[in-house]
């Protein structure tokens, strides 16, 4: 019987009411008295030297308050990178300056050159047209391998070349891996591209900077997944504003998918400029600007080799990846292709030896950083594609080959430095075979073939590492921040509760799911509990939401704080009932003395805490408010198995997904409805990557070719099917109090290989000997592959 409240209930989302009635409050809905508007003049060339900027005409245009250029930011810090990667020679990565407004050079289409602050947006735009900029165009580097050739045009003049770092992992294993591959009975080699994507949350980025002379306080309202991270980076590294004089507010945020983690130039600009012009400054990105200024995702070019012994056991895995950084290092750009990628290369399999080399490259393109999954989809795609290719080469069933090599005993220490605490890959594969009706596929294929269509089925597994932690470890790996989170549980006198959390909800439903946990622990109704998030002046210092960490890390902090509340409340209840604290039990919102009929209600205890007339003041303080910081001891490891079944029209190359099934193990689940929704959305993004989406640059000029929804194919309702998702396989996480693992990225990690494996299955079933097809598998690519 499904529960209707507390942990495990599909409670309807309370935030929906405001969103459904037009009462959400997104950053662009914020208008402050006296506000000005900024428009950024952006580079229309990918690479060039700025020889002159003349703003005089613009300055005299109607409504113009002030025009800013790079000169105004001399002596002010650049945008920092939050993760220092050390290369295989022990050298630190190259960290070129990332100015707020271009200084001397422009390095990608969209690089901001100047900013006009004006009374209205229209006036700011008009005046930006009047700025005269002379740019001496330089050759653009777009292709990563060409960027590393000697004599290639340099993105950053002060660096020796375009190589950011050359990372080896695990470097000590390199020779052993080489030997194992050389001695394997069979080696499958695959070269592939993980296509560049644009995250495209439906709400474009917005920043409103506000400076208050009366208390010297700067406030930034911004579309962020992590307001404290922005406060830390912008205050300490860019603008030099002490934290107590800087407030960052991220109200309702319309989707993030990673690209709203990072600290952006426009945020620093609006905060800085509001102080300069002594008025609020507002910037609202257009979608066209978003395509050339939001950090983009993926963009790996990889060669992977899998060794197998004569019995088809995996012996070793070796991969060489070129990872595109774009023109500058975005906030977490360096950790995505390294620690979030290399550590996942064991996947679900007991491959004993693994080595990866990652060359991170600067190019004249928009910076690349974490996008839903961040490194883990890239790792999964390589592993699951090369396994499928191996199965085809060896003539064995791809599911059987996977099952044979599954990790089956936990905890399991991988050869890539992580330890999986729990999992049951056999169970999720069994579940997948059931919900995808794999047994019935042959009949469905026969039916498709009768209609002149090819039908393919593709399967893959995935493992994810969520809730990046512990801080001590990530610090050793180069993180420049801790990765704990925090929660304050404030119980009010009448018993209602505000929980201030460091996590940020931008679609994940925290306002509903987090109270379910507290309600379960205290036995009071969910609607007595509210979540407060997104404002550094209200919440404890938390690290925000990304990497599927909210519940596993911040939720754990909330549990710890609630436990402290319960402990104190029991002391108060014991005093009120003149009983021993050890005998007090809390159930259904009532404190009772074990073995007696004595009880006091939750509200009686909370009232006593704030009106302490009859209260043990000599032992405990009045009030009922507790904070906990939680630093996990390990990542969490959700896992699963996905299946895509599709029809392919051999006349046109068009692929239609007929069925998509996902069997996930997320450990314990708080709200199954929300979890399913997260998986649905991730799958659509994965299908988008596999079949539709591609961020393309002209290889010669570096012009962004897919710069709007006219050219960048977002998945639409008729591009995707209904999905069958199941999360009944549950191996709870062993090291956090809720036993939860995280579910936000699974869909986007687990789906692209299933789709491509299915496309190849369809093609091969039609007699087309196609070994690989790069994403997105558009009709033209599929058709071309069929022509040999």
């Amino acid at each position: 019987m499904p529960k209707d409240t507390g942990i495990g209930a599909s409670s309807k989302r309370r935030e929906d009411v405001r969103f459904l009635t037009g009462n959400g409050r997104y950053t662009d809905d914020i208008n402050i008295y006296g506000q000005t508007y900024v428009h950024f003049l952006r580079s229309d060339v990918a690479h060039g030297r700025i020889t002159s900027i003349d703003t005089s005409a613009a300055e005299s245009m109607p409504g113009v308050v002030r025009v800013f250029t790079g000169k105004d930011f001399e002596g002010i810090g650049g945008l920092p990178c939050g993760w220092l990667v050390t290369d295989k020679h022990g050298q630190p990565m190259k960290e070129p300056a990332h100015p707020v407004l271009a200084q001397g050079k422009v390095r990608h289409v969209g690089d901001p050159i100047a900013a006009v602050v004006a009374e209205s947006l229209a006036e700011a735009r008009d005046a930006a047209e009047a700025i005269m900029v002379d740019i001496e165009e330089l050759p653009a580097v777009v292709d990563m391998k060409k960027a590393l050739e000697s004599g290639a045009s340099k993105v950053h003049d002060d660096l020796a070349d375009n190589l950011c770092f050359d990372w080896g992992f695990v470097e000590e294993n390199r020779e052993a891996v080489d030997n194992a591959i050389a001695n394997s009975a069979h080696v499958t080699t695959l070269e592939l591209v993980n296509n560049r994507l644009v995250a495209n949350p439906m709400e474009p980025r917005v920043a409103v900077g506000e400076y208050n002379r009366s208390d010297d306080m700067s406030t930034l309202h911004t579309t962020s997944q992590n307001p404290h991270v922005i406060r830390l980076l912008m205050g300490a590294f860019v603008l030099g504003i002490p934290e107590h004089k800087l407030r960052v507010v991220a109200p309702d945020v319309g989707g993030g998918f990673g690209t709203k983690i990072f600290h952006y130039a426009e945020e620093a600009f609006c905060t800085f400029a509001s102080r300069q012009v002594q008025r609020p400054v507002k910037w609202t990105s257009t979608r066209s600007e978003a395509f050339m200024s939001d950090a983009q995702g993926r963009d790996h070019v990889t060669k992977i080799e899998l060794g197998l012994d004569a019995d088809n056991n995996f012996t070793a895995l070796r991969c060489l990846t070129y990872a595109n950084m774009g023109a500058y290092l975005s906030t977490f750009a360096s950790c995505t292709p390294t620690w979030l990628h290399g550590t996942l290369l064991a996947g679900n399999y007991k491959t004993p030896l693994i080595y990866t080399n990652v060359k991170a490259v600067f190019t004249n393109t928009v910076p690349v950083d974490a996008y839903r999954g961040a490194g883990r989809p890239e790792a999964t795609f390589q592993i699951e594609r090369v396994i499928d290719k191996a199965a085809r080469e060896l003539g064995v069933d791809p599911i059987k080959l996977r099952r044979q090599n599954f990790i089956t005993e936990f905890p399991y220490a991988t050869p890539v430095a992580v330890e999986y605490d729990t999992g049951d890959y056999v169970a999720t594969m069994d579940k997948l075979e059931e919900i995808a009706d794999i047994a019935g596929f042959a009949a469905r294929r026969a039916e498709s073939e009768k209609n002149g269509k090819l039908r393919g089925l593709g399967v893959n597994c995935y493992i994810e590492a969520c809730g990046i932690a512990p801080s001590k470890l990530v610090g050793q790996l180069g993180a420049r921040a801790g990765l704990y989170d925090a929660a304050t549980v404030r119980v009010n006198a009448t018993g209602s509760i505000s929980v201030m959390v460091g996590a940020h909800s931008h679609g994940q439903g925290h306002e509903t799911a987090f109270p379910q946990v507290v309600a379960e622990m205290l036995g009071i109704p969910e609607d007595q509990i509210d979540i407060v998030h997104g404002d550094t002046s209200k919440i404890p210092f938390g690290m925000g939401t990304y990497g599927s960490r909210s519940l596993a890390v911040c939720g754990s902090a909330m549990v710890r704080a609630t436990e402290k509340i319960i402990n104190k409340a029991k002391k108060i209840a014991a005093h009120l009932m003149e009983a021993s604290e050890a005998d007090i039990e809390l159930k259904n919102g009532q404190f009772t003395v074990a073995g007696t009929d004595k009880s006091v209600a939750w509200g009686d205890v909370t009232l006593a805490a704030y009106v302490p007339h009859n209260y043990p003041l000599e032992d405990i303080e009045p009030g009922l408010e507790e904070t906990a910081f939680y630093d996990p001891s390990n990542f969490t490891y959700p896992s699963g198995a996905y299946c895509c079944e599709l029809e392919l029209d051999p006349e046109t190359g068009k692929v239609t997904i007929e069925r998509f099934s996902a069997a996930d193990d997320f450990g314990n689940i708080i709200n199954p409805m929300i979890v399913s929704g997260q998986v649905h959305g991730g799958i659509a993004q994965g299908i988008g990557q596999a079949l539709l989406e591609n961020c393309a640059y002209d290889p010669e000029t570096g012009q962004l070719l897919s710069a709007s929804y006219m050219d960048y194919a977002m998945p639409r309702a008729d591009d995707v099917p209904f999905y069958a998702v199941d999360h009944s396989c549950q191996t709870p996480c062993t090291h956090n109090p809720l036993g939860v693992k995280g579910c936000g990225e699974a869909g986007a990690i687990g789906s692209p290989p299933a789709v491509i494996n299915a496309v190849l299955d369809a093609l091969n079933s039609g007699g087309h000997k196609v070994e690989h097809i790069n994403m997105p598998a558009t009709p033209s690519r599929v058709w071309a592959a069929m022509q040999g």
Partner: protein
Amino acid sequence: MAKVAMKVNGKSVSREVEGRTLLVQFLREDLRLTGTHVGCDTSQCGACLVHVNGEAVKSCTMFAAEADGAEVTTIEAMANDDGSLNTVQQAFQDYHGLQCGFCTPGMVMSATALLKDNPKPSEREIREYLQGNICRCTGYHNIIKAIMAASGQDVASVAAE
């Protein structure tokens, strides 16, 4: 500047606006009806969808001046008179048809327009109708279910959880 007058959510309004003012800017900035959103600048995403004289219109594709004399309905006027969610809105909540909420006003306005013309749309008809509304969060699964449920159709038989 041009004077425009129209009825928005049943209330007569008039303002002086620049000729280039889009209907969506007029709604958001002049009338402060911020429930209607702007998600793109090429009339692709549908976050700005409203009803003009009962027809679904992307309010970024129309000048405010073109709506002079029209009756405009936005998401702010969709709830029942007592403030409770109407049938379509309630179905979106019941079936988890929204996550971040940004595309949602456009989705609700689009779904409402569809159901007016086609009271019992099939799954395929709903998917095709929603081509002009992009959602990045839900993968559309629960939006389709919500619209089927709002039209009184049996949802459990067509799609799993």
